[in-house]
């Protein structure tokens, strides 16, 4: 069992990491979350924890107070196992990532510490654990999913593609999970081959919480764009001893997810076209990465959209699904219809850090991405071109298409 001193040491380490690596401290103040207050509020729980389980719950509370802002989590045993498996399978080339697997080396390395392995092995890692901590065998049973959830899960291809009246191509894409790419790919490519073209295309991302960027770049964007496309984005980060490997690999010209350039934060104000850039954004980060995402037409799987492309959104659009919203907005690839998204989609795979005494692992977005207008993406998210009740988004979008046609 951890001693009181060890628990305090871990807690202090946690805040050192957050303050020196998690670049959204000032932005979180805008949404009413003050780190100093949260640090003080959660400290007694950590100091007075009766055992390691209570300690985990007390640390977890910090992230609950954060509202899991910008991908921030304390991994529990279930998440630890899942991430460990996933990161190792990326690095070993067992799962497609669409980028150089070597770029994720620090992500895999952090999961292979004996300390974490030992500590997490004492807790329940079954599905029922959700985001919480339980002693082995004490997590509740996985709740019975509602019948339609079940049906959805058993539907085979996750994605649904159909041609609608007016030659409107419709795709419902509920997840960008990397595991689904090989399964869902034929749904897109067979559809493209069968129809070759459409008048409009609707990409229904409602409920899509993210996954892998390569899902949308390879299956949707590259078959459609006629010319290569480069998207510029700005990611503000902290250069610190606590995230050094992640910064080195993640924002790397050679193996990172995006090509780009590192700049000191002071230079950001000199970048053109960022009218909503706030001075607050520049307080905590030390640098920014000016990323260049490149998309090349896929010559083998072509699909022509004659008029417009539309993305349906709701507040659950997050992470790499939000990355697609950003892509649509900054390139004009698609118009957005629905509800303001959940945000935090401009960046690379979230970073991790290990608390030295326990081996507990945290996760957080290592950068704060900017919207095309310079506002903070995790804070301001993406406001659709046509805002509506998300439950009506498909009808609203189709009505907009019909109105244009008439």
């Amino acid at each position, binding site marked *: 069992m951890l001693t009181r001193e060890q628990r305090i040491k871990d807690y202090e380490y946690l805040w050192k990491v957050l303050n020196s690596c998690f670049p959204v401290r000032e932005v979180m103040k805008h949404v009413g979350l003050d780190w100093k207050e949260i640090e003080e509020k959660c400290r007694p729980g950590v100091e007075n924890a009766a055992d390691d389980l209570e300690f985990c719950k007390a640390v977890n509370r910090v992230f609950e107070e954060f509202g899991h802002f910008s991908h921030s989590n304390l991994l529990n045993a279930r998440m630890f196992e899942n991430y460990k498996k996933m990161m190792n399978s990326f690095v070993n080339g067992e799962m497609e990532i669409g980028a150089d697997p070597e770029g994720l080396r620090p992500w895999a390395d952090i999961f292979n510490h004996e300390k974490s392995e030992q500590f997490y092995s004492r807790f329940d890692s079954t599905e029922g654990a959700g985001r919480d901590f339980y002693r082995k065998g004490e997590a509740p049973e996985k709740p019975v999913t509602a019948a*339609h959830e079940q049906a959805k899960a058993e539907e085979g291809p996750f994605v649904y593609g*159909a041609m*609608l*009246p007016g030659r409107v191509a419709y795709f419902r894409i509920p997840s960008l999970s990397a595991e689904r790419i090989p399964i869902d790919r034929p749904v897109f490519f067979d559809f493209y081959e069968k129809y070759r073209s459409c008048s409009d295309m609707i990409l229904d991302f409602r409920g899509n919480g993210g996954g892998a960027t390569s899902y949308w770049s390879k299956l949707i964007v590259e078959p459609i764009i006629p010319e290569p496309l480069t998207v510029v984005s700005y990611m503000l980060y902290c250069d610190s001893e606590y995230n050094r490997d992640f910064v080195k690999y993640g924002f790397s010209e050679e193996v990172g997810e995006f090509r780009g350039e590192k700049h000191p934060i002071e230079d950001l104000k000199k970048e053109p076209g960022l009218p909503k850039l706030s001075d607050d954004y520049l307080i905590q980060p030390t640098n920014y990465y000016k990323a260049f995402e490149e998309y090349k037409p896929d010559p083998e799987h072509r699909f022509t959209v004659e008029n417009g492309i539309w993305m349906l959104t709701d507040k659950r659009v997050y992470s790499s699904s939000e990355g697609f919203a950003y892509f649509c907005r900054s390139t004009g690839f698609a118009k957005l219809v629905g509800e303001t998204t959940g945000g935090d989609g401009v960046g690379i795979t979230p970073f991790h850090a290990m608390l030295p005494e326990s081996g507990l692992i945290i996760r957080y977005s290592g950068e704060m991405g900017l919207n095309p207008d310079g506002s903070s993406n995790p804070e301001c998210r993406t406001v659709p071109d046509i805002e509506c009740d998300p439950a009506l988004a498909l009808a609203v979008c189709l009505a907009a298409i019909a109105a244009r046609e008439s």
Partner: protein
Amino acid sequence: MLTREQKATDYEALFRVLTECYPVAGILKRRGIDMDALKEKHRSPVIDSEDDLAFCRAVQDVFSEFKEPAAYPDGHQRYLSHLLLFEPARYYSYRKMYKAFMDGAWENADREAFRPWIEALEHENSKKFYDQFEPETVQYEFWYKGQAPADSLRDEKKDVVFGDRSVPNVYCRVLPGNNLYIYVDSLDMMRIAGDREIIFEFYRQHPECDNLILDFRRNGGGATDYWSFLLVGPTLEEDLQYETCMGFPVNELNREYFEASFNHGKAIGDPDGEIRPISELPDMPEVHREDLEQLTHFWMEKNVVKADKEHPLRAGKIWALVSDLVYSSSEGFAAFCKSTGWATLVGSRTGGDGIGETPLHAVLPESGLVMRYSGEYGFNADGTSNAECGTQPDIECSADLALAVCLNRIYEDGKEK
């Protein structure tokens, strides 16, 4: 404050209604709910409750045993076969609503028919008892006046049943191809008059279409008049008749009601009445024999939807999108579509309990707490319970895909022509 004896009397009265008037014994059995065990389990918490507030909450725990797993976006909770204990917010909201009905807010409705419902709500004991509690709480909560925490107080603008009436209830648009789409959020009886203007104007602008799509996926009910007058009538060349079959247990608690409502005021057994003994129930293949044990009689209701030739809509084909949230008179609509073939249903199996009359009110005699339940057991055409099984769509798919699936079918059908 209620005495222990008064609470015991109410507890017996509650279970008398639940066992003798609420015709779901067979469904409960299949769901593994044993009424005797329930009665035993909740007796002490109810009778030994420390004050009136604790009593109400303990009674509500009994009702919670009948919850159904439907997830409405506004947190609305559904209980089997319209069962509900009126919490103060709903009690006052229903009183206000029935008073408005009596004043003519539900146009074309027979005002006198509302009398038994409002009488239950205006029972002297009820008025006195509910007066102790905070009237503007969120759904399902009981608090003494002045003691409700801020997060238990409701935005007064929002009706506890139908939500914010300043938000549009219908959305009418033309979709690509000559296809019309109408989304109907609820069948709120108070909005019939306002929505009629919107819907009839839409028909006037688009009097003919290849397809009409009615989106009921989030529609939890309201009034049958809404869909029969505003949606179905205008599409008809002539009146459309259809029958619905419902069973019920007749006893001294409810005999008068059934005779007045279903039997032209005639005594049950009178050959000129319409109520028949359950032994004469027509053959239906999937009837649960065990469910009939609780039912003594049935009524074959003859319904007519009148053709509205003043606001005509010529629709080539009609589709209705449904989900498990479709319930009550919205379910009545789904059941109507299925049995008459007026519309093709697309989506997931519906929530049910749409075959039957307005749910009944009962007052617990000592406290005055008011409860509600469906007094009838509605039969689907195959004999299954509508409350238990809902309606199976003609084209089954995940409800969130229903519009796309429907439009894809229209696209494919159009290609064949």
